[in-house]
């Protein structure tokens, strides 16, 4: 079968005599990889880079004629991030947490991330405007302001981190369930989640709400995760997903404390298998030295106390918070080994690959460069067993993994790393090789007919580490671990059109003057700020 490409798109056919041909026989051709959740840019990532000089000095790349130099293993510099994704055959990356106040910084870094198309999700779950309108039950008003925020920060989806908890963190507290009251606002996380889920529908957003649950990283939190999924159950229609629970591994802990920690995957998988309104991503732990960074300030404080490592914590004015702690996942540590097992259990226990996607929540559970290793674990029981022999014994005895025989096939991997993610993101031109799709193609040197991935997992891993060809927008940009061409990727953003858009009133200016360090006029990111702007227009229902 031939795939024809012209003008950066996949087309029915081209004139064979004049076209450049790539012989991919005996290889796997997939759409370019898509990462739904990877912290690659923004003030948080940049602070992570500052915090971790020791992360850089061992992993550095020299300047070449085509590429720029760069450093970093878990928090690589922007250019290196782009190159490494391209080498693995990835062409689209979503940066999942952007405090709206730091939007300009984030877009500057995204501009400097080459090779991949990208988008970013503004954090809206703890924004004072949202909390106030939801408290008063003014959903449509809330939707208008969210639309204004998405467009003025050039964002792509609504990201919610520890709803309400971050606002509470501003006064040194946290919330412990989705029915706790947010201090000063008299609203609960349940109301925030349901409210923003309805806003998301009113605005016809392509992606669902992107949720980092309350109680993340605490034993027994699988119940909160189940509550979170259940609380928007009746907002779903036509079997379409309405909520995405991100890095679910961190939200699937069972047990009363760290010593009794167990996997809560069974219950979560059962729920997800029986309902169609949820999508998840893994947040697979890799045993390595990495940097954790989330907008979940209280969680990062706990992690700092647990590990004793250096940390950065930040409360972003009226919007969100943030924290960064370097962290090393160890094979012999009970908790880390259980976490490793939980991630894989999630991917294997959830039957439908369109519902669970492969991520490491880069860099929280491991750097994105470990994806080939995860593919090997998912496709080969033998690979899992080899790792399982090396992990903490008690964790092994508590793990469900030895009882799971399932081995994923190449089609399932293609869904979990590409097609499923683009469907969840609502990107119609990506994640498939049909006519009209963007010509983002990855070719891997492994023959599915002659290679048994279950046995030859090392060959599999090597094949996915370096694509033979990475084609971006119809151009061969990388291959065999080399960058052939340094291309700029587009920044996708939503132009949400509401019938009655928010006007900047004197009242709003006053509030900016009182509560923000930035004046209202300087707040929005204008389109000329983006080097390659790719607006996606959506018509809202308000």
């Amino acid at each position, binding site marked *: 079968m031939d795939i024809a490409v012209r003008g950066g798109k996949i087309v029915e056919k081209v004139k064979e005599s004049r076209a450049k041909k790539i012989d991919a026989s005996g290889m796997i051709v997939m759409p370019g990889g898509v990462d739904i959740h990877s912290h690659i840019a923004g003030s948080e990532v940049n602070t992570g880079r500052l*915090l*971790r*000089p*020791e*992360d850089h*000095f061992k992993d550095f790349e020299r300047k070449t004629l085509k590429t720029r130099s760069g450093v970093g293993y878990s928090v690589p510099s922007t250019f290196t991030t782009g190159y490494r994704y391209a080498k693995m055959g990835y062409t689209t990356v979503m940066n999942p947490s952007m405090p709206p106040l730091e939007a300009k910084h984030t877009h500057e870094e995204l501009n400097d991330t080459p090779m991949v198309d990208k988008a970013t999700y503004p954090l809206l779950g703890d924004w004072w405007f949202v909390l106030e309108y939801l408290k008063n039950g003014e959903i449509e008003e809330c939707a208008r302001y969210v639309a204004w925020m998405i467009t003025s920060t050039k964002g792509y989806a609504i990201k919610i981190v520890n709803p309400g908890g971050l606002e509470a963190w501003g006064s040194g507290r946290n919330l412990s369930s989705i029915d706790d009251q947010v201090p000063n606002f008299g609203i609960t996380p349940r109301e925030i989640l349901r409210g923003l889920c309805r806003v998301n529908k009113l605005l016809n957003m392509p992606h669902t709400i992107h949720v980092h649950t309350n109680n993340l990283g605490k034993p027994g939190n699988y119940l909160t995760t189940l509550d979170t999924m259940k609380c928007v159950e009746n907002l779903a229609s036509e079997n379409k997903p309405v909520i995405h629970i991100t890095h679910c591994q961190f939200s699937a802990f069972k047990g009363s404390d760290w010593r009794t920690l167990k996997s809560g995957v069974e219950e979560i998988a059962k729920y997800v298998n029986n309902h169609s309104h949820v999508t998840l991503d893994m947040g697979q732990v890799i045993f390595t030295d990495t940097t954790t960074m989330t907008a979940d300030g209280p969680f990062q404080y706990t992690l700092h106390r647990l590990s004793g*490592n*250096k940390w950065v914590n930040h409360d972003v004015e009226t919007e969100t918070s943030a924290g960064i702690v370097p962290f090393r996942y160890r094979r012999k540590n009970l908790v880390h080994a259980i976490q490793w097992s939980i991630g894989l259990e999630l991917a294997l226990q959830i039957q439908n690959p369109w519902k669970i996607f492969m991520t490491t929540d880069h860099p929280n559970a491991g750097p994105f460069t470990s994806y080939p290793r995860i593919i090997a674990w998912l496709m080969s029981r033998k690979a899992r067993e080899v790792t399982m022999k090396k992990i903490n014994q008690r964790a092994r005895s508590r793990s469900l993994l030895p009882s799971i025989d399932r081995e994923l096939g190449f089609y399932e991997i293609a869904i979990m790393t590409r097609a499923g993610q683009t469907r969840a993101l609502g990107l119609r031109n990506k994640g498939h090789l049909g006519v009209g799709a963007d010509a983002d193609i990855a070719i891997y040197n492994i023959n599915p007919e002659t290679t048994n991935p279950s046995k030859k997992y090392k060959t599999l891993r090597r094949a996915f580490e370096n694509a033979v060809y990475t084609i971006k927008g119809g151009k061969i940009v990388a291959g065999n671990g080399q960058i052939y061409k340094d291309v700029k990727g587009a920044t996708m953003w939503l132009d949400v059109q509401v019938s009655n858009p928010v006007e900047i009133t004197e009242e709003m200016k006053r509030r900016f003057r009182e509560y923000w360090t930035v004046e209202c006029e300087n707040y929005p990111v204008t389109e000329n700020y983006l080097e390659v702007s790719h607006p996606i227009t959506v018509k809202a229902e308000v």
Partner: protein
Amino acid sequence: MVNLYPLKEFRFPIIAGCISPDVFQGKNREEIEELEIWEGNKQGKLGELFKVEEIRKEEQQEKTTIVIHGDVSKVRRIGKYMTGGEITIHGDVGMHLGEEMEDGKIIAHGNVGEWAGSMMKGGTIEIHGNASHYLGAPYRGSSRGMRGGKIVVHGNTGNEAGACMKKGLIKICGDAGQFPGLRMHGGTIYIQKDCDGRVGGCMKSGKIIVNGFLESVLPTFTIEGIKKKVKIEENEVAAGPFYLFLGDLTENGKGKLYVLKKKNPHLSNYEKLL
């Protein structure tokens, strides 16, 4: 055995992680000359900067011995990751000597730059001159310090010797700068002469022995008692009496700081608290 002679006086920093018995093992002179090193921002060959002289003995030794004759104070990362063999340097050495070495021996007959024995895991480094700052300390930002091995300095050291140390022994026959044993959580630091102060800041565990004058102990240390002697390593005991302090309390630490009583009469008011 391989002899290296610097061909000129170096102007730019040279990164030469390849000067290590593990890399030289099994290579002949031509191959050693071809090894890649960086001089400033230019990549070059070892043979362009050093005269390499190979002395073959009848019976092949298990691990190579390297002897450097001359001033290599601009040359960094000598003996990086080495797992055996021996390096002897007749002259001054640059930064990062024996970085993350696992075994073997390095003898420097001159002064040594910063981060000597940085993050080392085993083996021995013997320095006959002075060592600069960050002896055995981790790279900037890292909290994984020395995890084994032994460093003996016959001269003085700079600041932050043995920072973040976890295991092993640092023996300083001369004076030590400020902050020896910063954030250490294991191992032993033995300072035979005076110390500039702030000993064991943020230490959690391990022991530091000061056998000379120490102006003051950090306020976050408490006096525990007076000890007659302290064990340094097998077959070596430091004779006291010593004041024993515990700390650093800001980190809930239980590190032990021994200060010689005889040389520090100004600390005698601590005895009232016993």
